């Protein structure tokens, strides 16, 4: 769960990480009344990156300009996202911009500090040799010598080093205590008065750990279909093709999408019903897919814990209840395959055993429907 910048900064404040003075406004009038002393910067609160390039960051030097800028940000979508909140902050006098983050390195199975003296730009554009990667051992945490190593790499003036070490250790405490996947400050500003200030805040919390963080406000940016899928514990991702896909297992669902692409088709969605899915769950999955109006449906089941007869029963039940709105191509092998195929055939459906044959068929159907 990615947090909005203002929520990330609230967390920073709680953890003693200095942030600019600021207020959140939900209307131009509120922005004007916020009583922020110009010059200020107004930042649209959306979760998309490249917000600056999308026109989501504006500067203002008078109260009138503040109101006008808030009006602009709140009136039109930025990078496709509607803006409901604007963060108004004091404008910093910047001497240097640094990059600082803590995340998890998958290969090392450990947290890592990422730091660069080239802050303020997309970290992807910073050359690898200009980025320090400092792995951490969770049993040890972030000792002050590790913080000093990072401070030296960034060539900080010695009077700033103790302050920086405290900031980094606080950031690590936040990272661990809030189950973050990523905490990123870009840029971490050194002001002309020699103060360290986190000018931005990107915080991503691990979804699997949300159960132990009731204190965090939930940020939801999912479609209706994604919300419904979540309710049934289905892994669902909307895509932009025209062939609906229902499969079991993340790997095989991905491989199904790839096989469709190989034969010139494009999937409307990724939907993994998981292991041992019940009839109700499969029926809910079919409803979600049909609501997205694909031209055809590809059901690809490799029965292990999931039973072919359960999936067949669900298909037949949905067919009886609502009818099937588009042609359905089924590939079904594995546990209780014979019974599954028998159920399908008794109800005017059929199944392939080879995935690539079935994929070719459904691509052909989708093309002819176009």
């Amino acid at each position, binding site marked *: 769960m990615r947090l909005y910048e203002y929520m990330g900064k609230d967390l920073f404040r709680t953890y003693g990480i200095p942030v600019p003075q600021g207020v959140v406004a939900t209307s131009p009038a509120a922005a004007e009344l916020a009583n922020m002393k110009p010059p200020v910067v107004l930042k649209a609160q959306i979760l998309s990156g490249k917000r600056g390039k999308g026109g989501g960051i504006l500067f203002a030097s008078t109260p009138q300009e503040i109101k006008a800028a808030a009006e602009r940000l709140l009136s039109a979508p930025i990078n496709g996202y509607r803006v409901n909140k604007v963060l108004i902050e004091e404008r910093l006098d910047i001497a240097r911009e640094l990059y600082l983050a803590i995340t998890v390195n998958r290969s090392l199975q450990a947290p890592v500090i990422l730091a660069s003296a080239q802050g303020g730009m997309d970290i992807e554009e910073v050359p690898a040799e200009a980025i320090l990667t400092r792995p951490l051992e969770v049993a040890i945490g972030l000792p002050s010598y590790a913080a000093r190593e990072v401070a030296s790499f960034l060539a900080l003036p010695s009077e700033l080093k103790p302050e920086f070490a405290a900031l980094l250790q606080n950031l690590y405490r936040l990272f661990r205590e809030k189950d973050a996947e990523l905490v990123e400050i870009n840029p971490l500003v050194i002001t002309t008065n020699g103060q360290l200030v986190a000018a931005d805040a990107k915080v991503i919390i691990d979804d699997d750990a949300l159960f132990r963080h009731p204190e965090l406000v939930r940020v939801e940016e999912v479609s209706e279909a994604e919300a419904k899928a979540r309710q049934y514990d289905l892994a669902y991702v909307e895509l932009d093709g025209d062939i609906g896909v229902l499969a079991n297992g993340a790997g095989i669902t*991905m491989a199904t999408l790839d096989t469709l692409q190989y034969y010139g088709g494009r999937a409307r969605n990724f939907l993994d019903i998981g292991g041992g899915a019940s009839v109700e769950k499969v029926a809910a999955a079919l409803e979600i897919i049909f609501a997205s109006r694909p031209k055809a449906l590809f059901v690809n089941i490799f029965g292990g814990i999931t039973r072919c007869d359960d999936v067949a029963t669900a298909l037949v039940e949905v067919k009886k209840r609502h009818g099937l709105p588009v042609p359905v191509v089924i590939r079904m092998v594995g546990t209780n395959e014979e019974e599954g195929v028998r159920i399908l055939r008794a109800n005017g459906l059929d199944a392939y055993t080879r995935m690539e044959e079935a994929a070719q068929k459904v691509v052909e159907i989708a093309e002819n429907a176009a």
Partner: protein
Amino acid sequence: MAIIIDSDTTVLVQGITGYQGRFHTEQMLKYGTRVVAGTSPGKGGQKVAGVPVYDTVREAVEQHHPVASILFVPAQLGKEAAFEALEAGIKLLVIISEHIPLHDSLEIMSFARAKGAKVLGPNTFGVISSGRSKIGIMPNQFFQPGPVGVVSRSGTLGYEIVGALRAAGLGTSTVVGMGGDRVVGLNFMDVLREFEQDPETEAIVLIGEIGGTAEEEAAAFIKEKVGKPVVAYIAGASAPPGKRMGHAGAIIERGRGTYAAKVAALRAAGVKVAELPQEVPSLLKKLLR
């Protein structure tokens, strides 16, 4: 031989009295696995499929000396269950549970390293040495002994390819599930190293997917250290960036972990990469001749 587990590997089942624990204990016993004990707090003294149940891992270890443990516990309790097993001296942990918090996995891996224990998963289907023993949830009927070692990040896709191999007359030595999470224990390199040394394994199938850099690291390792033929299949050729494709780990983040980068790295290391899962057996047969 085979790798990681053999017919004499003794196994503990943590969470043996739950629906999944019970069902898979029966399946493992059917396959020939030496399941010697189970645990379930408050259920000590019971039996599941003839296997004695204990309240704590320590008691089970004192009585039956299992070397491996398989975890069927809710994700929220995964870390503690793993710690309990590692503290009691278990040397191989197979963590089936999905949705274990990332920071819990970090702590599990850190403690396992300190204890010199191997971890498979989280979010793995386990490991099976065909015809001898399995510690996992894979369907028994697909796995026949043979010369091919398989290592996979995904379960059903692994079964699909093992099924295709079997249809082509190729059995498997050991099939290893790495797990679909971002942070997992054994990686491709660890497993490849063991396959390279296993006299029964003549060729290796690597089943990867988008996200992370495990396949790229495997490619570098293969180039240097693996003499046996390797065939790979990578899932996610059509996956858009920034979307999590079912597995927590299957996501292209900040331009890294793409299909193209993985395939390029593997091909440069001399690995044959199949474009479709069904191509794996034919590619393998050419190399085995």
